[in-house]
């Protein structure tokens, strides 16, 4: 099923934030900090305000200092509370002030007239420096740049390691990766004559931002509207840190609508939650049959200037670890903030552990596919789930309800010709002189840890509207929710009108994240539609001389199950309702530990990826030849958009994360790679066609057996490619991206020495 809004998008008719300017609207611009760490000793905006056409300037002095209000999301949980604007800049490009003016040019000119005096502070740019004793503190009032140390243990890792058949050790590093959505950060805000705050934003969490804005400005929730009907690419970026707040402050001060835009560079450093870079120190012990004996794991993530995700990755729940000691250092530095880019910590964690698995498989003489098989978790009731490593790490008490990773491994291996093509590392040279390699990796993710509500209204003409506030940031949720409602009500897709992304007109919806808009949002829609269906059957029963249980919904009609030629149109049934309309509501509630009673599961995605590469040992170039991505997605409600997710994940991860993407900063902390060109964001020409395989496992707590795919599909890609590169050249490269320089260096061929 093609996306229902595909035509709107490709013809330019879909209205994104700022596509419809408001009368009297001003343009907002951000003043970035030139320093990585500096206190603002004075800030004087009088000259900027005097410039004709300037409507407002806001600084840290204008932030509403309510006790629960204008904070950067997630900062409070770390104990480091940061307001939308601060009197300290924590990284180069940090928002210092904002201007609203009649034109973009005036706004930019006004920025230069804001006189800011800074007192520079020492800065740290990497976790080693940040964790060193005596290191300058990123945040005053703290005692360490390690804002949180995570620890989790099960069994006795030390003993188990010493008696393991083999042990494997690796130190691996993963880079930052910028989200790079097509639509950069933008917010249009205005306060109407009744004191209501209206915010149009490129946003994945409209309900969350509605609460934040209400708290910050001391407003009733009903006095805040956040609307994000169309979002130009998600990936975590449209979880803005500050811009809706800053735009609202500007609009309030200027008493005019303000359209705040971030430049591409500002989007990269200020408002995206890039993938956190990190280092892993891993030692794993294995038994001779390939099962894991013990894990010793230390991860260190550079979270940038403000605390946030990620913590533990799902690789810890994807496999069985009988004995493990894990430590995670969450470190702040004077880099831009990092956080919840698609998959959060899973592409990093799986990349790391999948290398270790391959090394162990080689040592033990076991097939890499087989070593995964003997270690992956199994589906089913597990009363002791909270005592497993992932249960200890997260507090999740629920077991893995559905897992079909074995099918993913088998189907993926068959599709790529694993057994036929596998060879000794470095053994196969292609006709063009390049080295051939084949590799695989497993990935995982979870979804479903959210709450959502929906309302479905069946109209008197037999069509239906679906209301839920969750915004569709691109995965095709509007289509999927409509399909669910159509399925329940026996309607055609053309008869469904989804109303989404708007807190004023729709019930509370989950954030569009965590791969749960289908599972959580879709379940709420399903429940709401089922309420309508029940009412329809009740109303139709006397009309068709039957009981509701004897009736069904199909083709726009209510019909007698035993006699389909006896039916009434849904329109004619709705007409008999007191208000000639039928409405149903549904709420899906997630609970962390209680056993599911009809609701509230956490669904695990699993997948296996296989890659073939060709490595040019003279240039160091790595070309991906073929890829297979086999995914346990649950029942794919819309296989077309499910495949889109698989393809999209691979576009970001294969050439991107595995081979090219690497933000570079100057010694002063200035991002040198702010554009897609500099950051080497993959183009469609770089995309190696992935053969997508959907393993239609059934998730018992998902709507029609569905679970999430959006994030998990990217978790195995880099690991599979890295293992394939090893298979090609026989030398393992312990960091991504796998650049020509690293390949040549690994081969000992780098000109002028390594």
């Amino acid at each position, binding site marked *: 099923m093609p996306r229902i809004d595909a035509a709107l998008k490709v013809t330019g008719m879909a209205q994104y934030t700022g596509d419809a300017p408001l009368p009297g609207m001003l343009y907002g611009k951000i003043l970035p900090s030139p320093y990585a760490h500096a206190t603002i000793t004075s800030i004087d905006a009088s000259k900027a305000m005097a410039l004709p056409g300037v409507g407002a300037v806001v600084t840290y002095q204008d932030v509403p200092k309510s006790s629960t209000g204008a904070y950067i999301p997630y900062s409070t949980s770390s104990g480091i509370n940061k307001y939308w604007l601060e009197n300290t800049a924590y990284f180069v490009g940090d928002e210092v002030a904002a201007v609203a003016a009649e034109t973009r040019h005036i706004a930019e000119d006004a920025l230069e007239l804001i006189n800011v005096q800074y007192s520079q502070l020492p800065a740290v740019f990497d976790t080693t420096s940040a964790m060193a004793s005596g290191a300058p503190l990123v945040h005053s009032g703290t005692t360490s740049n390690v804002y949180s140390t995570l620890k989790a243990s099960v069994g006795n890792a030390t003993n188990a390691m010493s008696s393991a058949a083999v042990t494997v050790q690796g130190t691996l590093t993963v880079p930052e990766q910028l989200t790079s959505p097509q639509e950069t950060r933008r917010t249009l805000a205005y306060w109407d004559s009744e004191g209501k705050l209206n915010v149009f934003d490129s946003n994945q969490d409209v309900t969350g931002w509605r609460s934040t804005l209400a708290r910050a400005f001391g407003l009733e929730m009903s006095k805040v509207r956040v609307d994000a009907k169309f979002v130009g690419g998600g990936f975590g970026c449209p979880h803005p840190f500050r811009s809706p707040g800053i735009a609202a402050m500007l609009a309030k001060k200027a008493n005019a609508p303000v359209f705040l835009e971030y430049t591409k560079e500002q989007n990269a450093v200020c408002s995206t939650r890039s993938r956190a870079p990190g280092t892993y120190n891993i030692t794993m012990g294995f038994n001779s049959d390939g099962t894991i004996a013990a894990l010793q794991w230390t991860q260190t993530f550079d979270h940038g200037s403000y605390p946030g995700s990620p913590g533990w990755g799902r690789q810890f729940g994807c496999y069985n670890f009988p004995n493990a000691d894990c430590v995670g250092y969450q470190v702040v530095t004077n880099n831009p903030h990092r956080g919840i880019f698609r998959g959060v910590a899973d592409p990093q964690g799986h990349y790391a552990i999948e290398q270790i698995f391959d090394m162990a498989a080689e040592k033990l003489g076991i097939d890499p596919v087989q070593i995964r098989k003997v270690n992956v978790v199994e589906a089913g009731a597990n009363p002791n789930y909270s005592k497993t490593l992932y249960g200890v790490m997260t507090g999740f008490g629920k077991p893995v309800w559905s897992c079909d990773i074995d099918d993913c491994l088998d189907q993926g291996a068959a599709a790529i010709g694993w057994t036929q093509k596998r060879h000794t590392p470095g053994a196969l040279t292609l006709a063009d002189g390049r080295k051939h390699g084949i590799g695989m990796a497993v990935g995982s993710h979870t979804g479903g840890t959210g709450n959502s509500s929906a309302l479905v209204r069946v109209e008197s003409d037999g069509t239906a509207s679906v209301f839920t506030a969750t915004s569709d940031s691109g995965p095709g949720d509007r289509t999927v929710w409509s399909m669910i409602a159509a399925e329940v009500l026996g309607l055609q897709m053309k008869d469904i009108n989804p109303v989404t992304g708007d807190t004023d007109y729709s019930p509370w919806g989950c954030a569009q994240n965590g791969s749960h808009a289908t599972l959580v949002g879709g379940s709420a829609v399903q429940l709401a539609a089922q309420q309508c269906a029940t009412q329809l059957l009740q109303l139709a029963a006397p009309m068709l001389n039957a009981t509701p249980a004897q009736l069904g919904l199909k083709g726009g009609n209510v019909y007698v199950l035993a006699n389909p030629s006896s039916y009434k149109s849904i329109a004619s049934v709705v007409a008999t309702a007191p208000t000639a309309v039928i409405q149903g509501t549904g709420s899906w509630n997630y609970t962390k530990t209680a056993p599911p009673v009809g609701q509230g599961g956490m669904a695990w995605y699993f997948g296996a990826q296989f890659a073939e590469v060709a490595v040019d040992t003279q240039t160091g*170039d790595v070309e991906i030849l073929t890829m297979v991505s086999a995914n346990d997605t649950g029942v794919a409600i819309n296989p077309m958009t499910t495949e889109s997710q698989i393809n999209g994940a691979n576009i970001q991860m294969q050439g991107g994360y595995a081979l090219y993407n690497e933000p570079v900063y100057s*010694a002063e902390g200035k991002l*040198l790679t702010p554009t897609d060109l500099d950051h080497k964001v993959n183009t469609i020409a770089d995309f190696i066609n992935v053969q997508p395989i959907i393993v239609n496992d059934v998730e018992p707590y998902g709507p029609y057996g569905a679970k999430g795919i959006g994030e998990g599909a990217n978790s195995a890609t880099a690991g599979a490619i890295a293992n394939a590169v090893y298979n090609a050249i026989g030398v393992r490269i312990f960091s991504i991206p796998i650049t020509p320089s690293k390949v040549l260096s690994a081969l000992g061929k780098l000109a002028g020495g390594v």
Partner: protein
Amino acid sequence: MKKFYHLNPSTVAEAVSLLDKYSGSAALIAGGTDLLGELKDQNLPTQPTALVNIKNISSLKYITADSSGLKIGALTRISDIAASSTVTQSYGVLSQAATQVAAHTLRGMGTIGGNLCQHVRCWYYRSSGNFFNCIRKGGSTCFATAGDNRYHSIFGGPSGCVAVIPSDIAIALTALGATVTAVGSSGSRVIPMASLYTSLGTSLKADEVLTEVEVPAPTAGTTGVFMKYRLRATLDFPVVSVAAVATISGGVVSSCKIILGAVSQTPYEATGAEKALVGNAVTTSTASAAAAAAVTGAVPMTNNKYKINITQALVNRAILAVAGLPYPS
């Protein structure tokens, strides 16, 4: 972006007169694909007061060829060069370079004149808000030398700047022995490609407009190849490029030009490689020896040693390709 005057001359003379009037504070705009990015990012210390828009000078859009050679007006779009059968048939190196510039949409905007005059891509030079006032901008420091220089020069920088020429077209034209015509207030002059670039920019004066590119007709037996190594499959500048043009008579290379791109501030003539080939037949061993000679004297920096490997491999493959030999042999 700062405000500027947007001036629309309809002749080259008018354009020159406007450039003269603004004496260095005006910038020419044609396709704008390079300039507009710089205006938005404000990476330069000063912003132009005026943009002299030369797109309306229709007399500068042409591709003509006769027995003496090829002439291309400066406003000819890259896509028109890439699509020209004349260029493809007789000046294949240029055609190959043109098709590898940026991506289709940008080739449809960018002109050959603009491509030759584009500024370097050094990420310190390009950093927004003139964050790094480097040597190329009149400062005293090259930030790349001590910083991240993975895409920078492997042959040093006589003025202290280690940025590299990003143009693909310039490399091909240099190998073809092309010249450009520049018209200024003191008249018109012809500049060989080999003299167009300096270690800090071009040799064009502030009041000069590049109007035409002229490529001499190749002698019989001449073939050429352009190769570009880039990370992305499209829409990417070269990590290294090479244009190799050789005349082979009687199985022996009688003359050749091997020009390297993105390895120095200017198109880099690999004279060592040329010497290794002239007078010899192209074989796997002479190609290999020439490739090794091409990178002799390279002075890599911290992050760009790999560019030497890529340069050597590309030169080797280009030479084999020019001679119609397979790779790998």
